[in-house]
C-alpha cells in the first residue's frame, strides 16, 4: 500500500469516526437540559406521536437547539479555516478579524428596524444586513491589516481588534438608543443558542451550507493562496478574484452563524487547528474535518452551558472565550517564537 492510499484510508477513518462521535453527542444532547427526561422516557416520547409538554421540550426546544449548534459550529469553523488561508495567518478567525462584530452590527440594525429573515431561503433583510456588515468590516480590516506586502500577522490582529472595538461600540450605541429592545439584543449578542427555534435552523442552515459548500469547492486554490499572490498567479489563478470569492463564501457562513446565534468567538480558531493536527494542512481534507470538529465543539460547549450552572444558563460565548482565549494566547506565543514566525 502506498503512502497515498494509507493517508487516504487514515483520513476516511478519521472523518467517519468524527461523524459517529458527532451523531452520538447530538443524540446524547437530547437528554441534557433543565427538565429531567430520562433516556427510556425520551425514546418512548420520540416513538409516540401523542402531544405532551415533554415531547414539546424535546422537539421544539432541544432538537432545534442541537441542530443550530451543529450548523453554527460548522459555519464558524469553516469560515475560520478559510480566513486563516486567506490571510496566511494561523491566528485569524471570524471573531478575531472583526467579521462577527460586523455581522452583529448589521443584524442589530435589522432587528431594531423590525426586519427579519422573511424572504424564502433566508435572503431577507436581516441576513443581508448581517452579511453586508461582516463584509464591510472584513474589507476594512484587510485593507488596514493585510494590504501591502510588508504587513505582519500582528498588524492584522491589531486591525481586527480595533475595528471590532469601534463596531462593538456602534452596536452598544444602537442598543442604548433603543433601550426597549435592549434585552433581546443583549441576549442574542452573547451567543444565543438558548432561544434557538426551528425558524433559526430553517433560515440559518441553508446559508451556512452554501458558504461551506463554496469553500469546499475552492479548497485547492485555497491551498495555493496561503503561499502568496505570486504563487497563485504563477499557477494560473487570479489572486484578487480568488480572494474575493473566498471572502464572500466565508463571510456568508459567518453572517448566517452570527445572525442566528450571536457572537461566538474562538470556535473558528480552535477547530481548524485541531483539525490540522488530525488531517494535515490540505484544505480539501481540512475543511470537512474542521466543520465536524467545529460542530462537535459548539455542541459540547452548549451542553456545558446548559448544565454547569443549572438551572441558570451560561451564555455560550463566555464558555468558548474561556476555553478559546487561552488557546489563542498559546498560539500567539508559539508563533512569535517560531523561526520565521511573527516578524
Amino acid at each position: 500500500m502506498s503512502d497515498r492510499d494509507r493517508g487516504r484510508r487514515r483520513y476516511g477513518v478519521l472523518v467517519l469516526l468524527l461523524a459517529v462521535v458527532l451523531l452520538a453527542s447530538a443524540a446524547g444532547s437530547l437528554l441534557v437540559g433543565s427538565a429531567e427526561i430520562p433516556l427510556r422516557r425520551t425514546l418512548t416520547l420520540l416513538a409516540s406521536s401523542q402531544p405532551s409538554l415533554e415531547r414539546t421540550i424535546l422537539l421544539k426546544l432541544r432538537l432545534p437547539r442541537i441542530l443550530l449548534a451543529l450548523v453554527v459550529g460548522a459555519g464558524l469553523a469553516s469560515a475560520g479555516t478559510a480566513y486563516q488561508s486567506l490571510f496566511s495567518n494561523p491566528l485569524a478567525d471570524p471573531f478575531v478579524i472583526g467579521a462577527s462584530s460586523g455581522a452583529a452590527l448589521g443584524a442589530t440594525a435589522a432587528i431594531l428596524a423590525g426586519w427579519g429573515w422573511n424572504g424564502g431561503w433566508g435572503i431577507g433583510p436581516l441576513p443581508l444586513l448581517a452579511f453586508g456588515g461582516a463584509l464591510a468590516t472584513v474589507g476594512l480590516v484587510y485593507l488596514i491589516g493585510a494590504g501591502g506586502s510588508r504587513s505582519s500577522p500582528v498588524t492584522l490582529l491589531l486591525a481586527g481588534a480595533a475595528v471590532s472595538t469601534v463596531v462593538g461600540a456602534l452596536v452598544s450605541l444602537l442598543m442604548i438608543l433603543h433601550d426597549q429592545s435592549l434585552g433581546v439584543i443583549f441576549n442574542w449578542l452573547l451567543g444565543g443558542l438558548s432561544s434557538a427555534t426551528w425558524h433559526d435552523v430553517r433560515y440559518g442552515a441553508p446559508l451556512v451550507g452554501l458558504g461551506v459548500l463554496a469553500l469546499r469547492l475552492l479548497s485547492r486554490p485555497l491551498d495555493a493562496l496561503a503561499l502568496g499572490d505570486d504563487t497563485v498567479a504563477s499557477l494560473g489563478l487570479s489572486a484578487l478574484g480568488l480572494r474575493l470569492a473566498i471572502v464572500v463564501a466565508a463571510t456568508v457562513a459567518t453572517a448566517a452563524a452570527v445572525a442566528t446565534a450571536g457572537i461566538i468567538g474562538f470556535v473558528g480558531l480552535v477547530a481548524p487547528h485541531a483539525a490540522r493536527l488530525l488531517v494535515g494542512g490540505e484544505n480539501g481534507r481540512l475543511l470537512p474535518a474542521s466543520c465536524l470538529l467545529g460542530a462537535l465543539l459548539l455542541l459540547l460547549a452548549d451542553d456545558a452551558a446548559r448544565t454547569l450552572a443549572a438551572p441558570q444558563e451560561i451564555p455560550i460565548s463566555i464558555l468558548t472565550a474561556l476555553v478559546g482565549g487561552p488557546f489563542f494566547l498559546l498560539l500567539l506565543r508559539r508563533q512569535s517564537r517560531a523561526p520565521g514566525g511573527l516578524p
Partner: protein
Amino acid sequence: MTAVLAAQGVACAYGDREALAAFDLAAAPGTVTALLGANGAGKSTALRALARLHKPRHGAILLDGQDVWRLRRRAFVRRVAFLPQTETAPWPMTVEQMVLLGRLPHRGWLLPYTQADRAALARALDQVELQGLGGRDLGSLSGGERRRVLLARALAQDAAVLVLDEPGAHLDLRHQVELFDLLRRLAHQGGTTVVLSLHDLHLAALFADHAVLLRQGRVLAQGPAAEVLSPDLVRAALGVTVEAVPHPRHGVPLIVPVTRREADR
C-alpha cells in the same frame, strides 16, 4: 533562431522607484539564460516581468511572438512555469500536495487530479531526487530539500519555459551541480527554455549558454556566457576586483575575486 520568450524595451517600477529600464532579452529555445548582477540590480523584477507577474510600464514581453498580457493567464502558465525566490507555507503541507499544485494550470481548481498528474508528480520528484518523500511534511525537510520541492512543482507544470529566481539558493554544492545539470539537460535535450537568476559566477560559466549582466536596473552586457563573464564587465557590474582563470577541465572562464591579501603583505 527565434526567441521563445522575449523582452523588448521593458521598464518596470515599484511606485516611483524604477527597478528595470530598457530591458531586452531573447531567450532561444533549448537554451539556458542566466541573469547576473548585484543585489537589487533588477534580476527578480526582470524574471517577474517575464513570468507575467509584474506588468511593465513600457515595452512588451513576448511568448512565441505574442504579447503575454494578451494571453489568458491559464494559457500562459501552461507554457511558462515560475519558481519564486522565497516562499513559505504558514502551516504543514506535504511534499506531494505542494508539487501537485503545479498541476493546477492543467487540471484547474475543481477537477480531481488524474493519473497524468500523478505521473507528472512522480517524474518531478524523481528529477529533483526526492522520490519516496511525497508523504513527508515540508517542515521536516532541510532548506535545500524544500527548495527542490518548489522546483519539482515548477517541473510538474510541464511547461516549455522555466523562469527560475535563484534556483540554486540554499543548496549544497552537490545539489547545485545536479540541479544545473538537470536544467541544462532539460534545455539541450528536452528543448526546454530556461531563464534563471543566480549569484554563483562559476555555475553561470559552467551551465549557462547566454548571460545577461544587470547593473542598477539596466543591461550592462549580454551575449554568450563565456564572453559576458570577462573581468572588466564583472567588475563594472558587481563593483569588485576580479580576475578570470580558465576551468582546468572545461575551459570556461572562472571569475575569482582578488582580495586585499597582497596589499596587506
